[in-house]
């Protein structure tokens, strides 16, 4: 398959592995930001092919994992209402709220539908003027432009029965939160290539400078991941801390300006709670006041919902790379992809689910 096979070429992969082995002289801790990268490492068995001095820790870049529990409970409350068609990206359905998940709401008669694009939700609202169509707008900078576009289209069409439950998050503040934590172990970042395709990487030089960490924009195929790791290692070995782009075919310094403009038109930075991490200042996007009429949280008065959570799960430590999934006492026992205790076990991009599927759980 063109544009994929050349980045999974075994000869190129092994040549890059040789280069990395030649470059590494000491132990280093790298964090891949994005859950998609975590999965790619494990999906291809690449993590175990890296030299032992390199430790990968898995970052918080799984939008499903970091969406706070109360936001899930709000979604469940809205989805259960008879007048509502609740639309969501697929993997949010499995995330448990305090007592149930969207599957259970659907089994109890709620109209819950998986969409591939928020624009499908807008089309549903047009087709069902007698129903309230709500879209669960989660994700990083990657999903934000399309979600913002859905709101713009709804306004343009004059739709009164469309709204969004917003839980958007931004990567750079999370990187700073991790680096600023006293327990931080991360020495270099593989930045999330898809996020950078939208946002560029002009936000990273101040972070690299302030915390003295290399940041390498990295893609998702084996060759991309290894090029990112190699660039990070070469910087670490000589004590450099610069921002580098190892995903040139998709990412420019400026990023996708029209997409950024759509985000800025609809959203503004807000303080956002991250599951497992807490409130990070200015780390999310919320609707601008002029789009408040599309806010499902106020339309359905669910802002007051609060929650209790299981003390077993160590997702917070996993999401910031302090612990590995295997170090969790609940991993593979109380916590499996069927009965997730925490969000990293839920999403296809979650670190725990990746371990369970590809590696170390999996026994009956």
């Amino acid at each position, binding site marked *: 398959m063109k544009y*994929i096979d050349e980045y999974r070429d075994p000869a190129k992969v092994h040549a890059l592995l040789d280069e990395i082995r030649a470059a590494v002289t000491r132990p280093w801790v790298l964090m891949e930001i994005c859950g998609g990268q975590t999965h790619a490492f494990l999906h291809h068995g690449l*993590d175990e092919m890296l030299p032992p001095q390199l430790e990968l820790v898995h970052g918080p870049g799984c939008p499903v994992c970091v969406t706070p529990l109360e936001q899930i409970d709000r979604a469940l409350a809205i989805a259960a209402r008879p007048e509502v068609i609740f639309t969501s990206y697929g993997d949010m359905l499995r995330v448990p709220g305090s007592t149930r998940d969207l599957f*259970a709401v659907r*089994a109890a008669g709620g109209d819950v539908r998986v969409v591939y694009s928020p624009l499908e939700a807008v089309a549903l609202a047009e087709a069902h003027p007698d129903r309230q169509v709500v879209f669960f707008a989660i994700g990083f900078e990657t999903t934000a432009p399309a979600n913002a576009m859905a709101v713009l289209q709804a306004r343009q069409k004059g739709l009164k029965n469309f709204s969004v439950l917003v839980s958007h998050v931004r990567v750079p*503040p999370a990187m700073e939160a991790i680096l600023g934590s006293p327990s931080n172990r991360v020495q270099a970042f593989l930045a999330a290539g898809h996020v950078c395709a939208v946002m560029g990487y002009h936000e990273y030089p101040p972070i690299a400078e302030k915390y003295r960490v290399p940041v390498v924009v990295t893609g998702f195929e084996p060759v991309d991941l290894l090029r990112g790791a190699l660039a990070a290692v070469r910087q670490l070995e000589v004590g450099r801390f610069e921002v580098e782009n190892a995903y040139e075919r998709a990412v420019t310094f400026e990023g996708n300006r029209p997409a950024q403009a759509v985000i800025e038109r609809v959203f503004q930075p807000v303080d956002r709670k991250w599951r497992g991490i807490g409130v*990070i200042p200015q780390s999310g996007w919320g609707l601008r006041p002029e789009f408040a009429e599309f806010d499902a949280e106020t339309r359905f008065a669910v802002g007051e919902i609060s929650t209790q959570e299981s003390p077993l799960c160590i997702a917070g*430590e996993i999401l910031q790379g302090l612990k590995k999934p295997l170090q969790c006492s609940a991993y593979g026992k109380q916590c499996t992809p*069927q*009965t997730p205790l925490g969000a990293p076990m839920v999403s296809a991009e979650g670190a725990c689910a990746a371990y369970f599927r590809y590696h*170390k759980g999996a026994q009956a």
Partner: protein
Amino acid sequence: MQTDDLDFEGYTCPLPIQQRETVVLGHGSGGKLSHDLLTRLFLPELGKAAPRALDDAALLGLEGARLALTTDSHVVAPLFFPGGDIGRLAVCGTVNDLAMVGARPLALTSAFIIEEGLPFETLQRVVQSMQSAAAEAGVFIAAGDTKVVQKGGADGLFITTSGVGSVPPGVEVSGANARPGDVVIVSGTLGDHGIAVLSQREGLGFETDLQSDVAPLNGLVAEMLAAGEIHVLRDPTRGGLATTLVEISRQSQVVIELRQEAIPVKAQVRAACEMLGFDPLYIANEGKLVAFAPEKDAGRILETMRKHRYGQEAAIIGRVVEAGSPQVRLKTAIGGTRLLDMLPGEMLPRIC
């Protein structure tokens, strides 16, 4: 940036959904939830007297002969999809379940649950398709039943077929019979059916010329059994090849190792899976089988398969490496290794 008040240690998780109070769609996915439902609820109550309850069909001794018996309900949206329809699916599904224990299918029964309002023209086309599939498989529909439910009580049309077949003397095929040294053969490309159906779903609308592989496999199986010794046959339907192989590894208590680059997958299926965040190894097939055979016979069986219209792209994809704690390992194309598990529940597209 102010990060002092962030509580990285104080993270708590949502309460688990350890036991659901209701059935959810995932219980019908063919994956782990389906397996749990079967082993925890149905088998303890209903399966006490059923030998080999985890194979595709049951074997019943009858005055020296062995009868195979199976049943399968079919629900699919849309009713007509590229390469097939619910009628062909209903016949092939049950014929194949019989064939997967080495049986020669004899006769089927067919029960229809019809939602009021279904056009006669639709029903007629489905029934004609059933007849043509039955004729191709060399079986006949021996009995049937019809129920009509009110609008909203069913999604158009559900069809349940049951089948009986006879197992020839000397044939011993079961998911429990895999053993070290066996090679693993698939009869062709994986994921065609699931992706062909998915491409027709509302909201997806990606264009492909992909056809479902739905087909009766009893003819292919008969020729394979004549060509050599076969230990295991299974059709990797819902849950896909990975789920099927995990089941076999558990039934037989063996370790199976696959080579990713040997597994045949069409370029369109790979592309659709890349786009949607699916893995072809978990996508449903309706006209493919996986066989375990001793190495000495594998070449002859493979040659026979490739001459058959439903086995032209048959390939050896791996082997049973040892007996012991069940495991399915995949050697990735770049030389890494990962484990394959069952499909957890409903297959969900990824967010990005």
